[in-house]
């Protein structure tokens, strides 16, 4: 295997993981505040369709992206209204919205099926893309990919380093304690659910304007469910969530490379398609096993604590529970 092939493969993994990264980071923001937006899969389909349709009609990729983000934010707003104001079951509302949005995307998207359309322009980062190895892998893409990478760093930094981030954690962790400290719990939950939704919309746009161009029946099928699972595997921490998303991309890429290898010609394709999930579950089991506890006990307290925090993820304490304010 020569270097250029490796670089190419890694670059394609980075690019192909973009929608999953954006969607799972968006969902992380929403769930960190305590709201589960289960509508991801439908929401991505609808926003991907919208992005392409708007860009196709107006000829402007920017308008397409903005429209997709608005759609993602709007679906999230419906989830927020139903779960925060009406105090309905978040999971049920999200599930119904998933189906509704997916069907809506199919129905409204019919005129745009398999039409060639605009594409996000390629935009290598000056200087950075010239760095050997790292340059072509990370910095020789389009804006979506850079935004997805930026979203990881920015979300982590916002949640863990800023005052509003502390409040965001508090609202999801224990809303009644946040309220006791003068935080307007439900307003913040609305805000972060909608912001997360806009990122999900961006994920949809990145799909139809960059990763898998255009629109077709069941174009984005499954991406949203994968992102939801990755948020849980990633323990609601942006770095780990992103690592999960890229790991999943890697497993998938490995699958298609192995599939092309004649030695595996007898193996059914479904194995390669589903193996990433099995591998993810195995990785999770490994991290949460008791053996790891024993290993950590041998380390100095500070290191053990840092490692534990890096590996383990606990759901926010108030996840999925409505909060009655006042």
């Amino acid at each position, binding site marked *: 295997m020569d270097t250029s092939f490796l670089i190419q493969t890694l670059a394609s993994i980075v690019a192909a993981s973009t929608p999953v990264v954006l969607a799972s980071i968006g969902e992380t923001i929403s769930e960190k505040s305590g709201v589960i937006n289960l509508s991801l899969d439908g929401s991505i389909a609808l926003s991907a369709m919208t992005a392409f349709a708007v860009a196709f009609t107006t000829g402007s990729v920017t308008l397409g992206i903005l429209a997709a983000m608005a759609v993602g934010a709007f679906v999230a707003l419906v989830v927020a209204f139903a779960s925060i104001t009406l105090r309905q079951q978040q999971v049920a509302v999200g599930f119904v919205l998933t189906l509704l949005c997916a069907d809506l995307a199919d129905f409204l998207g019919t005129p745009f099926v398999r039409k060639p359309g605009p594409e996000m322009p390629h935009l290598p980062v000056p200087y950075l893309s010239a760095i050997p190895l790292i340059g072509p892998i990370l910095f020789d893409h389009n804006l979506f990919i850079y935004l997805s990478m930026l979203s990881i760093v920015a979300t982590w930094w916002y949640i863990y*380093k*800023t*005052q*509003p981030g*502390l*409040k965001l*954690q*508090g609202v999801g*962790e*224990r809303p*009644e*304690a*946040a*309220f*006791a*400290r*003068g*935080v307007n719990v439900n307003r913040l939950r609305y805000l972060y659910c909608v912001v997360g939704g806009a990122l999900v919309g961006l994920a949809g746009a990145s799909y139809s304007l960059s990763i898998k161009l255009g629109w077709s029946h069941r174009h984005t099928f499954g991406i949203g469910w994968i992102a939801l699972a990755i948020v849980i595997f990633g323990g609601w921490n942006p770095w780990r969530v992103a690592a999960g998303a890229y790991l999943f991309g890697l497993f998938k890429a490995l699958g298609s490379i192995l599939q092309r290898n004649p030695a595996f010609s007898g193996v059914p394709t479904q194995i390669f398609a589903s193996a990433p999930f099995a591998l993810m579950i195995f990785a999770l089991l490994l991290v949460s096993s008791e053996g790891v506890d024993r290993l950590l006990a041998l380390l100095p307290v*500070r290191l053990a*604590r840092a490692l534990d*925090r890096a590996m383990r993820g*606990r759901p*926010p*304490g108030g996840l999925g529970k409505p909060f009655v304010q*006042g």
Partner: protein
Amino acid sequence: MRIELVDIHKHFGPVRANDGVSLTLEPGAIHGLLGENGAGKTTLMKCLSGYLSPDRGAILADGQPLSFASPAEALRHGIGMLHQDPLDFPQMRVLDNFLLAFDHRFFPDRRRGKALLQELGTRFQFNLDPDAEVMSLTVGERQQLEMLRLLALGAQVIILDEPTTGISAPQKAQLFATLRRLAEEEGRSIVFVSHKLEEVEELCHRVTVLRHGKVTGEAEAPFQVNRLVEMMFGRSLPPTERVPVTPGPPVLEVEGLVVPSYQLTVEGVNLCVRAGEVVGLAGLEGSGQRLFLRACAGLERTAAGCIRVGGRDLTGAPYRRFLEAGVAYLPAGRLEEGLVGGLTLAEHFALAERRGPFFLNWAAARERAAAHIGRFNIVGRPDTPVEALSGGNQQRAMLALLPSRLNVLLMEHPTRGLDVESSNWVWEQLLARRAEGTAILFISADLDEILERSDRVVVFCGGRMSAPLEACRTTVEQLGYLIAGKDVGCEAGNVRRETEVG
């Protein structure tokens, strides 16, 4: 700051949690708020600290009326509350918990926050690691963190709700020293909410006693403990005549029983109950009596000791074997645990038939239900769903569903929420079973009921069981002492101690 609460009323549906409570908090004093579970202490303090808004009444600070819509607003007025279960963020670090409350700039100054945390910590000898996750701290440490938060925000009135529950003895000593210092040296008002007489006696300058949502008395230190007990539990009525029953052979023997649980471990319980005997279990809710009762029914995992029913060792045996041995358990949650919500009375009788045929005989079940409805005076029909019955009728239905022959009957709050007539009826049924040789163990929060109905009484306090007391020679005051964890009262009384218990 001098705080006055004037005629505070707070109702939850039909329950009058606070029914016209007035009290005054002086600066520089530790004010005790004493009362049983459900006396309305926490509700009153939540009204004062903005967690609840009172239905009626006023809060005055130095004569000026205050009103606040949230706990944060109350804290801006200098009133802060420490909850029994610390209201913090378990998954966040100590420093982040602290910063969240008071640093309102976009980038919190961690170095300054750490310095302030350390400075406050040194002042009160609270040694908290700023980088530790809150969930890794003990309850006492979490309390200290909450206390520092309130102090950093300038609280002048600090309310502590049952702060000694779940903290260690050194932490308690440290807490008391801190509270004294905050009151006596810094002139803050401290409200110490508790049901533990000993602690109130040790710490407080003044005390107000609540009972059933009303103030039953106030006192200044030094306190007359017997007066406080009377204010807390009320006067006892003279015991009524009881039909003597000659106890039969032992039916329930418990030796060295240890029942672990997440919050509390019941330890070293020895008890021998004979056929036809009634034993009352007293104690504040969560003192271990329920855990013990459920262990006797085979519903809790035991860590050590043994349980014998009718001479057979049933330690660790499944619930089914306890049922076969003639043990029955009637839980307090009638709809939650005792009955199946959504099913009718006839369906319950069909369900109670343990070895019936595969196809239900509905006619027979309905007939059986109708017969029991008549015999147990249940206001309802065979096809009435159980949740449509009143509390008293649900209790009657649960009694009607019991098998006819029982060796041991375990009950939680047999007459809770029932009027006098229904209570008497329930006890008639129970005493009839007793005459047939059923041993009865029951939990009740009503001390008069315990003394009136039992042959012997045991008191649970912090997971430990007192020696059994003869009910006819025990008074409500003595029980009050034991419940509140004071042992002196019963030694002064004419109580015979039968066995020493760990």
